[in-house]
């Protein structure tokens, strides 16, 4: 985590430009520019800027935006109310899509629709997410007028139905892309299970194919899929950056993009810090979930301790 913070800090400073530039405009004189640099602290030596940044971070103080003056943590909190529901809804929808389709593609891999699912998922992986977003907008918003094309209701979640309508297309966009790559993993995990000895044994012991698959197969197949899910959830959070831009959503991603354009270091550092934290937590949660599903991993951990 500390390494991530240091790398982040240095990389940001390597970008040419100056955060003070966001505060002044064409017509400003040298004295005004210097005053702006003093205000944001970009006139200090890099080492001093870094020490100040880490010291503040240790108090969990992410500072305030150079440009708007709003505390970073407050702004992130507000924007998470868009990004978190977006990510989680997309994640749940992706799983809901990928699980049945992936298993179907494995079980019926010799039928035409099994193959079709595989081909569609390969296509989905190859297509950039913003393009899918634009296509969905053109189809569902501009042509069919079913849902709004972009934006978020002014009253946010106070207007839950409107908020959900606004999120429908962005959620679908992420869910489609995510499901496409998940289907592959689910399919290959299912294939492993189908070809496994224990399933054959279960069948030999008299269970039907369906019963054996549900009882023994899914639990076994879930283990590798869960670790992938952890990674996918983290990458969904990052993918939200692009999707939020296409759909003009006031989330974490748009905050990050504007922050980078304006060299608003506190905002950029804050967003990256919080998202790193979330990614780590998700990885940890995926680990725990794996242990819950698979007793062998649990025993392993206990065995190691005694």
């Amino acid at each position, binding site marked *: 985590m500390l390494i991530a913070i240091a790398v982040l800090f240095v990389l940001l400073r390597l970008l040419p430009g100056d955060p003070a530039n966001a505060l002044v405009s064409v017509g400003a004189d040298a004295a005004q520019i210097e005053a702006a640099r003093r205000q944001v602290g970009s006139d200090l030596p890099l080492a001093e800027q870094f020490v100040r940044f880490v010291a503040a971070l240790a108090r969990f103080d992410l500072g305030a935006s150079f440009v708007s003056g*709003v505390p970073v943590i407050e702004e992130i909190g507000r924007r998470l109310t868009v990004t978190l529901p977006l990510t*989680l809804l997309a994640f749940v929808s992706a799983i809901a899509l990928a699980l049945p389709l992936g298993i179907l593609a494995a079980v019926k891999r010799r039928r035409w629709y099994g193959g079709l699912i595989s081909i569609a998922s390969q296509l989905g992986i190859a297509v950039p997410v913003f393009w899918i977003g634009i296509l969905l907008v053109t189809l569902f918003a501009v042509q069919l007028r079913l849902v709004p094309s972009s934006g978020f209701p*002014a009253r946010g979640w106070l207007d839950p139905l409107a908020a959900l309508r606004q999120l429908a297309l962005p959620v679908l966009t992420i869910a489609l892309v995510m499901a496409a790559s998940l289907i592959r993993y689910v399919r290959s995990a299912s294939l492993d299970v189908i070809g496994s000895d224990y399933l054959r044994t279960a069948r030999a012991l008299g269970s039907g194919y369906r019963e054996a698959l549900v009882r023994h197969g899914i639990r076994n197949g879930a283990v590798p899929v869960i670790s992938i899910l952890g990674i996918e959830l983290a990458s969904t959070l990052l993918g939200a950056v692009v999707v939020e831009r296409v759909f*003009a959503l006031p*989330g974490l991603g748009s905050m990050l993009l504007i922050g980078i354009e304006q060299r608003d270091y506190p905002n950029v550092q804050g967003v990256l810090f919080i998202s790193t934290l979330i990614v780590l937590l998700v990885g940890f949660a995926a680990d725990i979930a794996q242990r819950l599903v698979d007793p062998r991993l649990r025993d392993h951990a206990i065995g190691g301790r005694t």
Partner: protein
Amino acid sequence: MFAFVGGARRSLSASLMLAAATLALIGAAPAWASEAAVAIGSLYEPQNLDNTAGAGQGINEAFNGNVYEALFRLNDDGSVSPSLVKDYKVSDDGLTYTFTLQPGVAFHSGKPLTAADVKWSIEHVTSADSKSSRKNSLKPIAAIETPDDATVVVKLSSRSISLPYNLSYVWVINDQATDLQSHEDGTGPYALDSWQRGSALALKRFDKYWGAKPENDGVVYKYFSEATALNNALLTGAVDVITSVQSPDSLAQFKDNADFTVAEGKSTTKLILAYNDRVAPFDNIKVRKALARAVDKAKLLSAVWGDYGTLIGSFVPPTDPWYVDLTKVDGYDPASAKALLKEAGYPDGFSFTLDTPNYDPHPLAAQFLQSELAKVGVKVKINVITPNEWYTKIYKAHDFQATLQEHVNHRDIVFYGNPDFYWGYNNPKVVDLIKQSEAAASVDEQTAKLKEANIQIAEDAASNWLYLYPQIVVSKASVSGYPVNGLNSQFFAFGIKKSAD
């Protein structure tokens, strides 16, 4: 399997809980239904609400004349008229301005407007930590006196014929107001209702407004980061009007559609190829003139904007009073461009680096220039940079050979009177003319001086002025009464009428 489905359920209920928590977090619903307001779509979200602290052009668009008023108003046609000033007198030597304020004006907080507020507001812009780009133009102000609540006396150290114009940028703010970056207290026809950062800013009609009542109950500025998303919003009815269309490709879908109105106004945004006039070879006037003649600007304009936009022969747009048609001074003539380069000592041309901002239309224009200048033997290396880098490298450090830039301001010929400006143009005659124009005793004299300066910068080919952008506003056909020129990014909302679709 069960564990797995359980996991999915957990995250679903987590997201529901989160939604509930969010509801609690946002607090009470505003009483006024912003959904019924006129929705204005824009690409320029203000980053804070204070126009002296780097909020960007978006704040002028949303707040000038809507939320905040000034002593004078720059109207959409370019004229300047009294706003919070009822009457004013200028002493014979032009150094003392006595302003009488409109009676019965109240701030949104309820406090009545007094002379002390005006004094405080002007000093807010001229103060040491102000980042206003207008600070310099108010330098002649030596003292501000407030003999009574309704009178403001401004004393100048030198004549300033543009004082009323310059004061049109100075918002009159309640002198007790705090936290101007996220709150407001102005006198305008609208008060800030709510601001959702990253998406929308809602303005509600202020019932105690001293002037004419706005035509609508309120407006909502909705912000987009992408032109396509903005156009889709208008197509699907999520916004009623778009403040300025930035890409000509998208106009086709609105132009031949009876549901929409496309209005072309007059812009002050100029695309220029600015040389660093301090360094060789651009310190040579012949080289500058040669490059001006080598570029077919009509072709560039039609490549970028089709039938829209205007060619200009200098930095001054036709809406400024000192406009003269100078497009013939260095008209397109590649043969004479070659001859001039030979005279200047570059018979085989030369090469230079063109610092190009990374957003439209700069990259396209840079490529066009590259191919045009290659025809006269001049090689262009394109170096793409971000706006932030542009500011550090070019505006501050003057570390460049040539750059592309769009200049949006109205009446900004005065930049050529400042030898320290980034392009480093230094002709003492122009510096003098611009200084004299500000000290002029009458508007006619000011206009005459600036006309002369304008002709001189064109003769000197101080920069290469490529074209004037069009200013295009698109709305639903049922919406009318919006401003079309958008001078200085203003967008007056009070005249907008929305009839039932």
